Each structure stands twice: as C-alpha cells, then as structure tokens.
C-alpha cells in the first residue's frame, strides 16, 4: 500500500515538475513571468507605490536608449489587428530601444474586473471606458500621466480631456469619443423632416403600422429625458453637487415621457429590437455605434441616422439629451516600465493613430483634428454622434449607483405611472444624492 502511494506521489510530482519546465520555456512572454514573480511582494509594493513610481520614472528618463522593453497591451478582439499595426509603427518610430509587444484580448469594460483580480499580471497599457475610470483611480490601478500631458490636453476635445482628469490629475490618454446614442430610422417611412420631432415620428410610424423603439428602461437611455432640461453636475472627485430633476422642467419632461409611452407606436424594447426590427416592424429606434453596420446593411438606401428628436415638454419643443462617453488609454500603476508604457499610450492616442483607428475600425476620435476631418463627416453614424454630442452630457464621472434610481423611475413610467410625478422625481433626486458616497 505504501509503495503504491509512493509511486503515485512520485509520478504526480514528476508530472508537475515537467509541467513547470514546459511552461517556462514555451510561454515566451517574459513580461508575464516578470510580473508574476513580483506578485508575492505586491502588498508591500503597493504601500509605497508613490515612492516607487517616482524612482522608476527617474531611472526611465535617465537611461532610455538601448533598452529592451516588454509591454503587455490589452484590447478587445476586434482591435487586435489595429493594435499590431500601431505596435509596428511605434517600434519604427523608436528605433533606439527594442520593444517586445504581447497582446491580450480583454474587452474595455472587462478591464476593471481583470485588474481587480490580479493587477500585477495586468497589462501595462489598456483601453477602458471613461465611466470606469473613477473606480480604477479609487482602487489605485491607474498611473498618473506625467509625460506629454499638456500636449494631450490641447490635442483632444475638451469633453474628452475632462473625462480623463480626476481630482485635478490627468489619469489617462483620451483615445476615442465613440459612446453615445442617437436615432436610426427607415427613410422609406420617415422623412428627414419627420425625424426632427418626436410627435411626427410617432404619428408617421403609427400611420405606417410600425414602431419607434426607445429603450427608456435602460438607465443610460432613460436619462435622456431628465437631462434634456435638467442640471446634473459633479465636482472634481466625481461627487454629485447639483441635480434639479425635480423642478417644473423635470415634471414636464416626465409628463412628455409618459405621453410617449402611452402612444400606440411606442415600443420599449432593448437595443436588439432596434437592430433586428428596422426595415421590418420598426420605423425608428434609439441605438449606438455598435449596430451601425448591421442596420446599414439591412436598410441599404433607406438607412437614416441622426440626432435624437425634440419632444414637446410643457408646450415647447425641447431637444432630448444623451450621454457623451469615450475610451481612455490607461497605464497600469504596477507596471515595471512606466515611461515606455506612457510613451506607447501617448503614441496610441496620437492624431495619426486616431486617424488610423478611424480608417481601420471606424472609431469615433477624441482628437480635434481627426474629428473635424471631412472623411469622418462622411460616415453617417459618426456624424450623428457628433451632432447629438452638442446636446449630451459628459458621462465620464458617472458611476454605477447613479443608474438605478432613474432606471426604477423609467420602469414605473413604462408600466403606466400612477402616482404623482413630482413626488416620484423628489424620490429620484434624493436617491441620486444618497448614491453620492
């Protein structure tokens, strides 16, 4: 019996040992193993991270020639090809050093949780949605941007730069202003004139026996009514300082939303119903850039996209609002090579690379020059995004607790609001301020 056990144990040990050898040699990504060997002492590191970063910046600037640098970069699957091209150009632009790039497939909105699991094996450079920046800064995951900061602030649109600054510090490189929602419509049902007002859209859609899909119970979209005339302001740390959703304008907005819900052509669905229904049972729908290709393919010549319509609030036409969000390229606070990581992030978000991102991936740029180019204006959904952005609020400092009170209100409206509008709005504002901390 003992012998059996001994043999089994020996076998297992041998197996594990062999396994260890195999991975060491074949993994090839030396940046990973470097990081993970560090993980044992990660707790002590983080305690003195400011001191660390100070010294490493110094050493980086002192000796920046002839180094061999391993950089791990995260991006979503569909951006991998683009990132590889950028990496090649970066190498060509910095021949004094040898760069070894490794790419990981991590979607932008997964970055937060991936870093939360284990920051030491996280990427040196990654892209994240700007509304997750606050959480990442609070958890100490982002490296403060110290290289080329002034240039970054001047070359990008004001709203994108605001989104990357927290507590007065630049915490990332603005990389895209591509998040938001607007109106897709079927030109065979609605004319360019019709889509200017909500009333006309609803009327014409009903006449054609089709629907308007406006997913108000998604909090992100639901806010478009409250933001239309309301004020919703944050201070530098992302604390809610001003919110007047419960004044007379707010009541008028909610009454307009109630009227829309009551209309026979209204459909509260989700975004999928917009992309699948257009050209079929849906005449118009609210959605974002991710569905543009699919809708364009479906509608062909009847493809229409523009800003959100105006709605009748308290007897006058008021433009519906939305959120303007984007992507930021951040640098890991635990990176071994902060200087090179920042240089690459800077390069990745430069005008040339944003132009390339637009060409390869149709990414909406945060760079002022690229955003104003004629080529960009030729892409209908990006033009609509830019048009709607004039009426949009910067999403960057929003965080999760702010969505649910409005979501709950919109659920009520969708179910046929029975109570008093004023008291419902008072409750929402109270909860929003409670969510503050």
């Amino acid at each position, binding site marked *: 019996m003992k*012998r059996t056990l001994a043999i089994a144990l020996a076998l297992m040990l041998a197996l594990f040992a062999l396994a260890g050898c195999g991975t060491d040699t074949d993994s090839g990504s030396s940046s990973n193993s470097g990081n993970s*060997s560090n993980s044992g002492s990660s707790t002590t590191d983080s305690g003195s991270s400011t001191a660390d970063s100070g010294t490493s910046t110094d050493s980086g600037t002192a000796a920046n020639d002839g180094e061999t640098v391993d950089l791990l970069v995260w991006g979503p699957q569909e951006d991998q090809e683009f990132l590889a091209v950028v990496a090649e150009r970066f190498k060509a632009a910095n021949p004094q050093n040898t760069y070894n790039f490794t*790419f990981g*497939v991590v979607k932008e909105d997964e970055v937060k949780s991936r870093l939360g699991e284990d920051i030491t094996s996280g*990427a040196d450079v990654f892209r994240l949605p700007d509304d997750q920046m606050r959480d990442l800064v609070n958890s100490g995951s982002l490296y403060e941007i110290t290289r080329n900061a002034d240039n970054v602030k001047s070359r990008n649109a004001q709203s994108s730069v605001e989104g990357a600054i927290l507590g007065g510090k630049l915490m990332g490189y603005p990389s895209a202003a591509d998040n938001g929602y607007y109106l897709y419509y079927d030109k065979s049902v609605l004319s360019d004139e019709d889509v200017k007002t909500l009333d006309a859209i609803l009327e014409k859609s009903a006449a054609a026996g089709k629907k308007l899909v406006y997913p108000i119970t998604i909090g992100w979209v639901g806010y478009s009514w409250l933001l239309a005339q309301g004020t919703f302001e944050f201070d530098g740390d992302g604390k809610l300082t001003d919110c007047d959703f419960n004044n007379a304008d707010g009541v008028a907005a909610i009454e307009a939303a109630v009227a829309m819900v009551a209309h026979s052509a209204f459909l509260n669905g989700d975004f999928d119903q917009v992309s699948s229904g257009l050209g079929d049972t849906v005449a118009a729908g609210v959605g974002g850039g991710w569905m543009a290709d699919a809708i364009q393919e479906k509608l062909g010549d009847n493809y229409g996209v523009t800003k959100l319509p105006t709605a009748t609030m308290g007897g006058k036409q008021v433009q519906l609002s939305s959120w303007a969000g984007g992507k930021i390229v951040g640098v890991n606070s635990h990176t071994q090579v902060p200087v090179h990581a920042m240089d690459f992030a800077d390069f990745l978000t430069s005008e040339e690379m944003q132009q390339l991102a637009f060409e390869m991936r149709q990414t909406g740029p945060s760079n002022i020059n690229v955003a104003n180019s004629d080529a960009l204006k030729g892409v209908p959904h990006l033009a609509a995004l830019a048009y709607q952005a004039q009426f949009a609020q910067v999403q960057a400092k929003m965080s999760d607790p702010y969505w649910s009170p409005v979501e709950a209100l919109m659920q009520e409206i969708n179910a046929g609001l029975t109570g008093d509008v004023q008291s419902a709005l008072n409750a929402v504002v109270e909860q929003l301020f409670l969510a503050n901390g």
Partner: protein
Amino acid sequence: MSNFKRFLKHEVVDFLYHLLLAVMSVIWLLPVAWLILNSLRLEKDPYIAYILPKTFTLQNYVNLFTNTRDFDFPRWFMNTLTVAIFSCLISTLLILMISYTLSRLRFPARRLYMNILLILGMFPGFMAMVAVYHLLNLMNLTQTLTGLVVIYSSGAALTYYVAKGFFDTIPRSLDEAATLDGASKNTIFWRITLPMSRPIITYTIILTFIAPWVDFIFANVIMRGKSDKWTVAVGLRNMIERNNVLEYFTQFCAGIVVVSIPLVILFMLTQKNYVAGVTSGSTKG
C-alpha cells in the same frame, strides 16, 4: 369481449405513453434543432422571428475554420482537446486509485477521510477561484494549459463515491484468491479489479473528459486576455459580445455544434458501458 376490452385498454395506455414521450422528446430536441438550423443560416441577424433559415449555407462552418484572424477557433478547439485528454487521463487514474483504496484497504480514519472528501465535494469549486488563481500564479502556471489541467484534475478525488460503490460490488473473494496466489494489492488493482471495471472506467472517462469543454469560469479567470490559450467556452463567449454578435452569431452557433462533435462521438462509442456504469455503481453505497 373482455379480451378485446383489455386489448383496447392496453393500446390506449400505450398510445398515451408514446404521446407523452413524443411531446417530451420534441421539447428536448427543439433547442438542438434550433441551434443546428441557426448554424446553417446565411442571414447574420441574431434576432429573427422565424425558425427555418431563408437561405441555407455551410459558410459559417467554413469561416469558423478559415477566418481565424479575429476568432481563432481551430486553436481553441485544439487547446480544449489537449486539456480534456490530459485532465481526463490524470483524473480518471486518480479517481480509480482513490476509490479502490477507499473500497479495499483498511486504515485509520478511513471513514473520517471519506466524509471529509464528501463534504468538500459539496462546495462549488469556483468559490475558491481567486485563491486557486493566486496559487497557480505562484507556481507560474497561470495563462498556461497546464494550469487548466491541474485545476480540472486536482479535484478528481472528491468524486470517488460512484466508483467506490462499484468496486464494493466486486466480490472480495476474488481479491483473497489472488492474495493467496501471491498478488500484492497493487497487482490486484491493475490485473484483477480494473479489467472487471469497464463500465465504471467509461463513466469516469466521460465525466472527466466533458469538464474542460463546459467550464467557462475557471478558464476565463486563468487565461485572462491570452487569447491563443483560450478554450472554446471562453472564445465562443467572446464571439457574442455586443460588438460582435450582429456579425458572428451564426458562426457562434456553428462553433457550438462543432464542439459537441467530440463529445457525441465519445458518448456513442461508450454508451453501452456508460449506462451500465451509472446503474451498477449506485447499487451499493
């Protein structure tokens, strides 16, 4: 007359049974049929209001294996297959040896040990996920297929009870006879017990082979962004993210159908033994 009546009653009852079975089989098979139909559909839209595709095509399957720029399905498939084969071999061996030990050998705290294993097995494995991740990290095994094999096979001992139940049903007199002929416990296990245990070996093989194909949580956490080491579950999940679903949904369905092929083959090859294994192992606890 009464004979006819009985015959009629018999027929009616039979008919009702069959009707019930037919309805149930339709309910069970419908999702599978839906999946296969979707994988053969040319229109890319994931949200459609009809079942039969307007145009049939095999292009989704072709794309799955040739269009690997964004989604390297063949690689994920081979990764999963490799992990499945190795973790299947290791865990099957472990389970059988542990079950045999607990069934045949008598040692102090055997009952206690069995109870501990049983209770440990009741905790869902992913509760310890973060701890497992950091342990593997210390061993430098994260983002490697070896790490996955270790995860899938290290919990093997916890599922000893069905195999132990089976070994309990093999008469002890056989062991004793072999002992009299000079065989050690080790020889008995390999030469006497295992050859008689085909059903339970098959059962264990199937169970341990399937695990890597259906696990998403561990593979996702261990591999993180390293897409060339992903398994099919993680990779396919990536295909239906918001940005990709409108383009890749039908290809995703094709992927699932392809994934089921090795499992179906294994199952068909071992089906007879599998049923025998489940029933015989559970007769005696």
